[in-house]
């Protein structure tokens, strides 16, 4: 086009370099050019940081006018809150299968958006999860399914933007409903005056947690309430200051003795991990990092709906307290690499065995798929290839796969192995240089990506390693340790530090 209009027939590459020549004014243009191509970023373009200051006086003035009256929303004139999707953002990533299948951190929905509302709102509308409703706002209507969320404000519905695109590509086309069609440019964040009418139809949603109405079944709800303090150990800062050892007093279990002579893992390195629940925000980055690193397939909505999502790293979300005003916690779970792994002894073909450095290893080409290991895994972190999910990957996707990791065929079990391929690379490098692996040399994909450094990984026998030190903390506990399976992954208990004025947890017994 440029050649036709301007007569300039230089290639695009040359033109780009021409432009950059004026920006990169340093000594060696080619060197700098290669550098920024390699890094993918030009340091010189970094924005300048500004000093900002909040003038609280103005804020008070605005708030005093009560811009958000609490009783403004009613059943017939509901508040509608637009959010960009946690997965596909404003829709620009709608054709990305990884992101479409990434569960929403709160609703745990994949492959769809829904109109999210509170229990009370749903009750008054006479709708339940997966009921298709007509959302009416400003004379425009949109049909989308209902999802009930504990803690959502009554008469306020939340909807995610970024779905319902119809010309984005083979993955994203027609996924979900397009909320841009209903949103007014004058009220892009939230608005009032929406109404909802049930259609009597249902629409299947693919959710990765709380299947089949767990949140309404009393029996299950009570049991979750009882076991939650064991699974996710948390305290307020006050409580922690009073009793630093609280995590170890939650579970009473008989002495954990084996009936046989246990194998000692005393040869370095011995790999281990900690996940700090205190800093985990539930952002899902680890899930995607893991998916990318380990060639984990996308299985599609139907399969997720059947409960067959493949994520090796998942984020469990639990509510606690009052269902209408709950607290929420996230817990990242992947294979805990138990030293006495229950999955190993049940495999009839020894496809999952322990390595000498303490990994719960998988021999994919030995696996015949009895699924016994998955049944016997108390964390349910094992993932089974029910079909040949790698079938039909476009060539470009195939080329994007990690060459260090096997692509698993159907009928094979798979799971996290602490990024064993990265460990192997570090081992080889260390061996070549005739030294031991340095602390921090092996970084697992989830650890690398975690924005809050919640994940620490390393050799637990190295007294100078970070993991060794972190594991000394008294907040450390192992999930389901009472089963005497000795997980290598530990969690650090969550501490909350609520503002006493706002705290609902005045009485911790509640």
């Amino acid at each position, binding site marked *: 086009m440029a050649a036709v209009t301007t007569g300039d027939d230089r290639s695009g590459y040359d033109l780009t370099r021409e432009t950059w020549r004026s920006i990169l004014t340093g000594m060696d243009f080619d060197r700098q050019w290669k550098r920024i191509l390699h890094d993918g970023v030009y340091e010189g373009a970094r924005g300048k940081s500004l000093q900002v200051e909040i003038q609280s006086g103005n804020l008070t003035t605005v708030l005093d006018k009560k811009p958000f009256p609490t009783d403004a929303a009613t059943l017939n004139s509901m508040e509608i809150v637009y959010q960009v999707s946690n997965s596909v953002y404003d829709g620009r990533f709608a054709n990305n299968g990884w992101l479409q299948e990434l569960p929403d951190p709160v609703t745990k929905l994949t492959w769809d958006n829904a109109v999210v509302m509170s229990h009370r709102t749903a009750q008054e509308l006479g709708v339940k999860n997966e009921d298709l409703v007509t959302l009416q706002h400003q004379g425009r209507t949109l049909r989308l399914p209902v999802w009930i969320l504990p803690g959502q404000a009554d008469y306020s519905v939340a909807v995610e933007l970024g779905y319902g695109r119809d010309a984005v590509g083979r993955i994203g086309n027609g996924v979900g409903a397009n909320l841009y069609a209903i949103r007014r440019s004058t009220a892009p964040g939230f608005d009032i005056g929406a109404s909802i009418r049930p259609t009597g139809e249902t629409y299947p949603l693919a959710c990765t947690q709380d299947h089949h109405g767990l949140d309404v079944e009393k029996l299950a709800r009570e049991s979750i309430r009882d076991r939650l303090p064991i699974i996710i150990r948390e305290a307020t800062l006050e409580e922690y200051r009073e009793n630093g050892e609280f995590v170890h007093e939650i579970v009473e279990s008989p002495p954990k003795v*084996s009936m046989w002579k246990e*194998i000692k893992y005393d040869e370095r390195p011995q790999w281990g991990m900690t996940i700090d629940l205190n800093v985990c925000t539930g952002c899902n980055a680890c899930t995607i990092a893991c998916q990318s690193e380990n060639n984990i397939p996308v299985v599609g909505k139907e399969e997720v709906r059947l409960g067959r999502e493949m994520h090796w790293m998942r984020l469990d979300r639990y509510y606690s307290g009052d269902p209408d005003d709950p607290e929420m916690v996230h817990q990242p779970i992947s294979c805990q690499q138990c030293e*006495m*792994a*229950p999955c*190993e*002894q049940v495999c009839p073909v*020894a496809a999952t065995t*322990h390595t000498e450095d303490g990994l719960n290893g998988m021999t994919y080409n030995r696996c015949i798929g009895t699924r016994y290991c998955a049944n016997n895994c108390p964390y349910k972190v094992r993932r089974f290839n029910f079909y040949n999910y790698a079938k039909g990957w476009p060539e470009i996707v195939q080329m994007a796969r990690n060459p260090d990791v096997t692509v698993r065929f159907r009928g094979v079990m798979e799971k996290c192995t602490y990024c064993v391929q990265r460990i192997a690379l570090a081992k080889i490098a260390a061996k070549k240089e005739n030294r031991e692996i340095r602390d921090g040399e092996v970084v697992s994909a989830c650890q690398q990506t975690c924005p809050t450094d919640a994940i620490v990984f390393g050799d637990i026998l190295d007294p100078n390693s970070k993991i060794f030190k972190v594991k000394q903390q008294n907040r450390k506990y192992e999930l389901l340790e009472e089963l005497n399976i000795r997980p290598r992954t530990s969690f650090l208990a969550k501490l909350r530090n609520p503002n006493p004025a706002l705290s609902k947890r005045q009485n911790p017994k509640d």
Partner: protein
Amino acid sequence: MSSTRTDSKLFGLLVEFETPAALLKAAEKVRDAGYKKFDCHSPFPIHGMDQAMGMKRSNLGYLIAIFTIIGAAAGLGLQYWVHSIEYPHIISGKPLFAWQAYIVVMFAMFVLFGAGAAVFGMLHINRLPRLHHPVFFSDRFSKVTTDGFFISLEAADPQFDLQKTEAFLREIGGAYIERLEEK
């Protein structure tokens, strides 16, 4: 089939009796007369017949016992060899020689070898399968699996004398006597 072909050789005599009781009594008499190479055929095993025929106890039991022990040892040996020598792996943090877990397979092998020895040992001692036998030349003998009770007395017995033995069998109550030939 009781033909009179000249090239045929006498195998022995086949005598029929009416009832199990008659057979049992006859067997005692044949035994007392000192015959060794004879057999009593019946559609079902008759209680007390072993004694009546003067037979020793079956030694099949020893064979089975030996095989059960071989089976169990092979089971244990296989598991020890696989897990401790040939293919050692750390599995669930348990010792390589996890004998508790090996008992089931040992027991299965014990039973399998024992059962195999019982059946195939029995067939071997009974010289079976043998689809061809002189007694089958007798049409009458086909009753043996329904309601026929027979004694077959072999000519190879040192006491055997065609005339005398025939007379003896008739004397002890043989209702029907037939000469059996080989081929």
